[in-house]
């Protein structure tokens, strides 16, 4: 019996290249370049050496120091407060803007849509300088306010750039809304307000989550704009870290940064989980 001849292997298509070694190497390289610095930062946060250049053994001392460092803690609480408040505000403002742009036609609508992307495209340094001038010359923000009111200027600055991210994300989400759904609710007896809360907002939810997450992380790690708008009492975590490394990169900085990374990743994971339980309906 004649041996059945195997058909020649088809030439690999573009999606098959991942199986080839040069590409694997490329992927490996990317991963190394992306994550090696982060890994180093984390590993050296446990390094038992002030100079932090050579590995001198494992210690948790610097974590203890970070957790006892009041100014660092203060900066951290400031950062979280600013991030939380500005996220809530930008989600509300962004969602309202997205609804406005999606639902209504009005004069200068393209103008507004364009203006919305300005905070996204303008270099942050310009925004920072602009806010500095604004809050010192145009609308001087009182510096002697009690906490957390003294964070107001930073919060306003953060909202002003992050709400446009929220608006874009939610606007994109709304594009997939089936208008018949809204009409069905109206037809079944719901008022316009009820329809908004019962039907449209639930549809927006994944966008609100994604936008909120974006706003939160943008605010939490913003340095440039915050640097220009913060005063001596309103130091945020990134600004504090910056001031620490001006003297030297100590394991304390590493430890603080590691904590920040862990917290951000954890919060992101929680948010994604919450959103995931909701995402099953997107198919409809």
């Amino acid at each position: 019996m004649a041996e059945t001849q195997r058909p020649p292997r088809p030439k690999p298509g573009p999606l098959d290249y991942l199986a080839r070694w040069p590409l694997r190497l490329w992927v490996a390289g990317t991963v190394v370049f992306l994550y090696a610095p982060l890994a180093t930062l984390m590993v050296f946060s446990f390094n038992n050496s002030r100079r932090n250049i050579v590995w001198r053994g494992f210690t948790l001392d610097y974590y203890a120091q970070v957790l006892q460092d009041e100014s660092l803690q203060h900066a951290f609480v400031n950062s979280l407060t600013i991030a939380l408040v500005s996220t809530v505000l930008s989600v509300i403002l962004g969602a309202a803007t997205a609804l406005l742009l999606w639902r209504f036609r009005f004069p200068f609508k393209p103008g507004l849509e364009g203006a919305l992307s300005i905070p996204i495209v303008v270099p942050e340094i310009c925004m920072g300088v602009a806010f500095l001038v604004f809050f010192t010359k145009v609308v001087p923000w009182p510096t002697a306010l009690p906490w957390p009111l003294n964070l107001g200027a930073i919060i306003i600055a953060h909202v002003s750039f992050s709400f446009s991210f929220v608006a874009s994300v939610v606007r994109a989400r709304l594009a997939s809304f089936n208008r018949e759904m809204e009409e069905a609710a109206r037809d079944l007896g719901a008022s316009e307000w009820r329809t908004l809360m019962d039907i449209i907002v639930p549809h927006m939810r994944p966008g609100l989550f994604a936008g909120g997450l974006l706003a939160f992380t943008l605010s939490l790690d913003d340095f440039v704009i915050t640097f220009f708008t913060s005063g001596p009492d309103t130091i945020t975590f990134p600004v504090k870290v910056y001031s620490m490394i001006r003297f030297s990169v100590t394991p304390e900085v590493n430890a603080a940064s590691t904590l920040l990374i862990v917290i951000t990743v954890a919060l992101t994971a929680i948010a994604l989980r919450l959103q995931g339980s909701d995402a099953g309906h997107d198919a409809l």
Partner: protein
Amino acid sequence: MTGRAIITFENVTKRYGRVVAVDNVSLSIDEGEFFALLGPSGCGKTTLLRMVAGLETPDDGRILIDGQDVTQVPPNRRPVNMVFQSYAVFPHMTVAANVAYGLKVEGVAEAEIAPRVEQALKLVKLDGYGARKPDQLSGGQRQRVALARALIKKPRVLLLDEPLSALDAKLREQMRFELTQLQDQIGVTFLIVTHDQDEALAMASRCAVMNKGLLQQVGSPSDLYEFPNSRFVADFIGQVNIFEGRLDIDAPDHAVISCPGLPTPVYLDHGVTGATGATVWVALRPEKIELSGRKPGSEPPKMEDAPQGANIVAGEVRHIVYLGSESLFEVELDGGARVKALRTNLTRWDQEDFAVGQPVWLAWHACSPAILLN
């Protein structure tokens, strides 16, 4: 039908910019009817339906529901409910919550809602599906949810926008039957929009045919099919052969029309209310044409209800479309015109074995053609 009018359109007009979507429509729909709005896409039928629901406002005219002028009443305060083309089932709510939604916004007590939801789901044969989410349902089931959700509100009129267009052929057939049965059972007036003439003929007790925003004809399905009032209606509903001709004789008991496309005159056993010499159109349905074999050179047989030489033409089969239950023959006449004739496949193979190129006689009765004046 002499029911009470439940929906009345009085000179309703709707424009979108320069386009007139609905053009001065006056129409009355009686209580308990299964009424179909039929027409090609863009004819204004959906706009008319949406104006009943309150989702569009007429530019001119009035709409009455149950004698009440509702022209300016918002959709949430109208005694009608709608099944949308996309079903518009709320994806973030369970089936039961979807069905209950209309009662909930109305403020009906929770204790009353649950049994009514169960009853509504039973009505559409979805009992036991209450806890499911819409993404766990098939298209047909989602449609039933939309139906139950609308019917639970006990509407005076149920509006259905192309309800069957998204279902596959078999399911569509079944839903046609179920919808008519449901309507019999609950007695609510159904107003349905469809572009599918089969659907309208099969389900509706009365239809309105629309074209370019104008109402073309209103009548029972058989009226529309057998007695169309225009070439548009004749052509839109079912298949038809249309010949332009001249009214030669118009007597009370018979009429004769000569058509350039037909070698023999068309003889009718009834009069036509038209001026002699006027241009008319002869509409002949394919199933009303009898097909028989022809030996070349033979004399045409005489039709029993027409004078010798009328209502029978010679031709040759050019094309055969086998449709299962019947076959459609395209026959070329001596003058070159093509005529469609439909034959039921009475036996499992064609006894006469017509083939392409076969010479045939085409004959029809004197009462079969519909004469159209426009």
